[in-house]
Structure formats: C-alpha cells, structure tokens
C-alpha cells in the first residue's frame, strides 16, 4: 500500500504544484554528490549490481548534459531509472515505446528547430530496441539527417524481459530463447553487424565504445555532441544477470571483449573508417568467454563446443583483420590502445585527444 506521508513528500517534489522553497542542503554529501561534475543520471535507481548499462548511461549523460533531452526506448534502462513518482534522471527525459525512440527523438529535434533552440536531443535504446524492433525508425532518423545522438546500450539480449536473444546476441551464446541442449549450442545466428549498416547511411559519425574504456567513451560522446547531424554510438555494456558473470567483473569482461577482438572499438565518418582502438596484446577469445555463464556450454567435452569456440575465435580474428586492430603500421606514439588503458579507464598518458586516422 502507498504510504501517505511518502506520497505527500513525492507530490511536493514531483507533482504539478510549485515545489516548496529550496530544500535544506543535506548535512553530509555523499562522495558522488560531492563530485563537481554534472550528474544527469542519479544514483538510487534499481539496476542490478554491476549493471554495465547503468554505468554507460551515466557516463554518456554526464558528458552530454545538461542542455539535452532524452528519448528512451523501453528496456532495462527505462525501467530501472523510473517507476513513477521516482526518477533518477536530472535531465528532461521521455519514454514512449520500445521501437520508436529514434522517431520520438526526431520529433523532439524538429520541435527544437521550429522553436530555434539548441538543446541537443539524445535517443537511448537497448540492443533489442536498436538492432531489432526499432531498426526502421532508426534508419529513418539517420536518413532524414536529424541532429540527434543515438546511443545503443548493447548488452546483447532482451534483458528487461528476462534474457531473450536479439540479433545482437553473439553466436553460440545462450539466452532463454536460445538455450543450449542436445540439439543446440546456443544462438545459431551471427551478431548483426549493425555498425556497417549504420555507416552505410553515410552519417557524419558512427562509433563503438565500451564501459571498460570510459575516457574513450566520453571522448566519443563529446565528439558526437559537436556534430550538427545524426551520430550513432553503440556501447558494449555487460549485464551480469544475463551474461551470468560475477557482478564485480563487469569492467573486466567488457575489457576482454575489446582485447580479444570480438567487440572492436572503431569510429567511422561518412561511412569510412577513421579510427580504431588498437589492441596491444591480443587475448584469446576463450579468456573473454570463460567468466560468462552464457558461454559455459562451450567449455564442455562436446566436440561441438570446440567448434563453436573456434568459430568465435575466427570471428574475432576477422574483426582484427578488417579493422586493423593490432595497430600494425600505425602511429607508434599512440597510447590509446586497449592494453595501455588501466582498470580505472585512465591511460598512462593522456589519450583523450585527436582521433588517429588509418587509411
């Protein structure tokens, strides 16, 4: 049942009536509150411990805000940050449906144009809302060249509905709709190469990032924010619940995905590859798969397990080759490489600078 006192308090804070005169400052500020940076997504939301998506969204909004508004697709991010009358958002934010974030953002942007305002519009969606059901609306938004930064939080399955496969789920991963069994080794199909499809719209900026590399992620957000036109960013965001890894391993797992080549961090401008994060020491794919329960069946005695592992390794090798991820022939002074970035995301030397070009 609803507690009346709490309700009155929430009404006062969030209701239509004018807010009470400024609240007395809390006696002791938490370390997060004491941080000088802009906080667009507050703590206190209901994400699982170690949620990569929550971290990624905070990093994005922190660096994009405060003069933004967000159109958010249905999914974990929408659900764990809300439940009326509480909201973790400190920027204007609207959720409409699962498959229309890009179109809602288009409308917001059109309205900003009509009113001569500069507020940047962001669209947030999960991989389901982006690779699958919201794909058409996204393509339309890119083609119409709306000034919107679309961020896809890629946790490689429909997590909000309880871990079902999406077209972003990696080959051989298990989900509740791609379980492993006598006849199956998890998902039978490949992860969709969304970046290439997005890049084929020849928009100004397309990039991938990872929660394991927050500086690189934020540099990409800043770059995208400066673009007057559509930009697309996909952020690899581990989900401890769905990937079945220890919640303290989120960053570790995300970093291994980059270091083995399965999730390349790249930037494309007008459809052409302009920058990649080089991998200094390529890891075997098995290092990435091992801590994750969704790949546990790939470490059985079954002969098919070895085949599938080889298959995944081949996919990683392919990425390394087509994107030139080992950095051969590249600027030796670069320190932005995956292996050079520490656990905190800090590089030994500043790597927060100019994009390096590969021809």
């Amino acid at each position, binding site marked *: 049942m609803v507690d009346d006192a709490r309700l009155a308090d929430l009404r006062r804070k969030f209701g239509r009536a004018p807010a009470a005169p400024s609240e007395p400052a809390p006696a002791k500020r938490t370390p997060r509150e004491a941080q000088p940076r802009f906080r667009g997504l507050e703590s206190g939301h209901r994400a699982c411990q170690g949620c990569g998506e929550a971290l990624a969204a905070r990093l994005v909004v922190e660096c994009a805000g*405060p003069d*933004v508004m967000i159109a958010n697709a249905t999914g974990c991010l929408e659900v764990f940050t*809300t439940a009326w*009358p509480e*909201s973790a958002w400190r920027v204007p934010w609207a959720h409409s449906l699962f498959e*229309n974030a890009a179109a809602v953002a288009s409308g917001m*942007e059109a*309205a900003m144009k009509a009113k001569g305002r500069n507020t940047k519009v962001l669209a947030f969606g999960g991989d389901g809302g982006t690779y699958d059901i919201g794909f058409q609306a996204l393509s339309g938004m890119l083609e119409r060249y709306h000034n919107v930064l679309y961020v896809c939080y890629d946790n490689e399955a429909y997590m909000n509905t309880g871990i079902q496969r999406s077209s972003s789920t990696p080959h051989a991963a298990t989900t509740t709709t791609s379980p492993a069994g006598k006849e199956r080794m998890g998902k039978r199909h490949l992860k969709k190469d969304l970046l290439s499809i997005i890049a084929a719209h020849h928009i100004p900026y397309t990039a991938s990032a990872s929660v394991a590399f927050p500086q690189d992620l934020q540099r990409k957000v800043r770059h995208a924010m400066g673009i007057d036109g559509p930009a697309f960013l996909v952020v690899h965001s581990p989900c401890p619940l769905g990937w079945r890894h220890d919640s303290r391993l989120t960053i570790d797992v995300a970093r291994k995905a980059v270091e083995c080549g399965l999730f390349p961090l790249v930037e494309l401008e007008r459809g052409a590859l302009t920058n990649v994060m080089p991998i200094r020491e390529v890891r075997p794919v098995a290092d990435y798969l091992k801590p994750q329960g969704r790949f546990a069946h790939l470490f059985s005695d079954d002969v098919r397990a070895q085949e599938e592992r080889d298959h995944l390794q081949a996919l990683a090798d392919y990425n390394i080759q087509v994107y030139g991820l080992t950095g051969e022939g590249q600027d030796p002074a670069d320190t932005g490489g995956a292996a050079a970035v520490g656990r905190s995301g800090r590089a030994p030397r500043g790597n927060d600078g100019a994009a390096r070009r590969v021809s």
Partner: protein
Amino acid sequence: MREALEGSQAIARAVALCDPDVIAAYPITPQTHIVENISKLVAEGDLHTEFVSVESEFSAASVALGAAATGARAYTATASQGVLLMAEVLFNIAGMRLPMVMTVANRAVSAPLSIWNDHADSMAVRDAGWIQLHATSNQEAVDTTIQAFRITQDTELPVMVCMDGFILTHTLEPIDLPSHEDVRAWLPPLEFDRKLDPADPKSMGMLVTPDFFPEVRHSHHSAMQKALATIEQADADFESAFGRASGGLLTVEGDPEAKIGLVAMGSTVGTMRAGMAHFQAEAGPARLINLRAYRPFPSQALRDAVRGLDHLIVIDRAISPGLGGILGSEVAAVLSSAPDAPRILNVALGLGGRDIPETLYPDLLAAVRDPDAPAFSVFDADLKKLAPEDR
C-alpha cells in the same frame, strides 16, 4: 472568403492557419492529398513548420509525440492501415496526455483490401483515449480542425478529426477559410506546462506500478468527461467569432414530434438529411441525430435527444464481427438507463465504400416498422452474392 477547395486541400490550409510547429505524416489513400498539399504549402513558403516526411505512420505518430512532449504544436494525418500501424503510439500519446491533432480520412481496414470509406479505422482505436470528432461536411472538417487545436490544448487530450475518405476528402466544395489573423486571435499559443525543458527537467512516460495505475486511468476518463463541456464551448466560441458552428457534441434536426429517429456520424448524416427531405411524404416524420463527438461519448446529450422516440435507427459504418454494430451497441448501452428508451434498429451501411443512396432512407424507416427486422444487420449487403452456407 469562399473558395472552391477539395476537402484535403482545405484541411491542409486549415492546419496551416493554426501555425503548427511540427507536422509528421506518411501518405496513404485517401489521406494522401492532405500530406501533398501540406508539402506544397511548405515548399512555397506559405507554411513555416518543421515538416517531417517519415518512413512510416508508426514514426509519424512518434515524431508528433516527441514534438508535443517538448511543448510544440504537433499535427499528423492518416487513414486505415496507417491508423492501425499507429495504434500503439496513439494509446501512448493519449496515456501521456499530450496535446496534438490528427486528421483521419476514414477508410476501411484490410482484408479484404479496400481503399474506400467506412469507419473501421478510427473505431479500432476508439479506446485509445483520444477525443474523436466527426465532420459531416468539408466546412465542418475545416472548422473542427481549427477547434481541435484549441480543444487539445485546453484538455491535454489528443484530438482526432474524422472525415469520410473520398466522400469528403476528394470532394470540391465552396469553403470559407477564416483569415490567418482571425485564427491567431482565436487560438491562443500552446502553453504546455509539463513540457520537456532542460531548465526544469522532468521525466515523462515512466513505469507506473499498480499503486497508481487505476488512478491514472480514472483521471484520463474523468478528463474525457470534462472534455464534453470543452468541446461544446469551443464550438460556441467559434460560432461567436466566425458565425458558424460545427455541431457541438451532437445536433438534432427534423420533426421534434416524430416517433422515429436516426443516429449517424459523418457524411452519412448529409445523406440521411437529403433522404428525409425527399421522402418525407412516403416515409413519415423523423428526427435526425448527428453524433459529432464519438469520444468522449455524449451520453446525456443523447438521452435527451432521443426523448419521445419509439424507434431509433443507429447507422454504423463499422462492425465488430460477432457482436454487430459498434455505435449501435454503445447507443443501446447508453440508453439502457433512459426511461422509455426507444427500440433500436442497428444497421451497418456503406462498408468498404458501398454507396449509400438517399433512396435507402425510406427502406430504413420501413424496416423500423417491420417487427421481424433483425436487431442488427449489414443492411445493404446483398446476400444473394454469397454462397448459401456463408449467408
């Protein structure tokens, strides 16, 4: 000034008079001429708006939603399959209580494929929580469009203006378009206090737990009921400013002493009016009720309008297979609590664009007097065209 305009063209011009900030639309027969005429107005510099030519009706409604959420005046138009493709967004717009206006050029819903008029499309989303107003003529469609922008901002309920596809959208009529200045004076700027604004960040469209959901639905329903007065008021104000009304919630005409009445929506009202005039002598006196507001449903006004009637013919342009007429069922439900409620004869007419000739009028009145007439029928269906087992 009166001009001969095609219905769609008149709607485009009426929308332009209302200074929409954002228009998003996708073409579909018989709405296409509306989008085309809007595009032309934009291209010629006669309409300054962000016109977003989207890749689907789903996105058209979503773009309008996003625009409305920021406090912009938003408009879209569609028909038939487009309404159904929008359906999920339409419920969402209304549930978020966002103001906007949409024209529905009413058309049948496939299958079988039909591009012609009936009301299956707007009826399919009758429970979405939008206000639905029907126009009987193009002049009413124009005036109702202008009124709709005022009603939507006064109620924070989206408004659907329904006009019969082809019958109205493609018909040339002399139309009196008000001047831009007069419309600007009549229609105040949109002030939407829940708008998304970085200076006062709000969250919108949030998850709502069972703790609050019934209250949300209750308040939506109660806003719809309060909108009855707003709709009447807007029409009355419009009449004092421009000298003509569009029918308030409903209108009643014909013989006040008549024992037989008819209820219809949209262009069918005009057909029945003509039938009544031509066949008065042989068919006898009747009362004609034009239901302009379908949602919110003007229950009390309807109870008042049927007082004294023994029989009521309810004309539906859409059916709920397995139940019968949709409007007929609703009218029956609303009148069930009226003392001495008339006996209802519910007929579906003109499905999929079947012509409704005024010569049908005396047949309808004869059917009312026939004690064996079924309570519901697809009245103009020729059963001989069906195999015996399909009749």
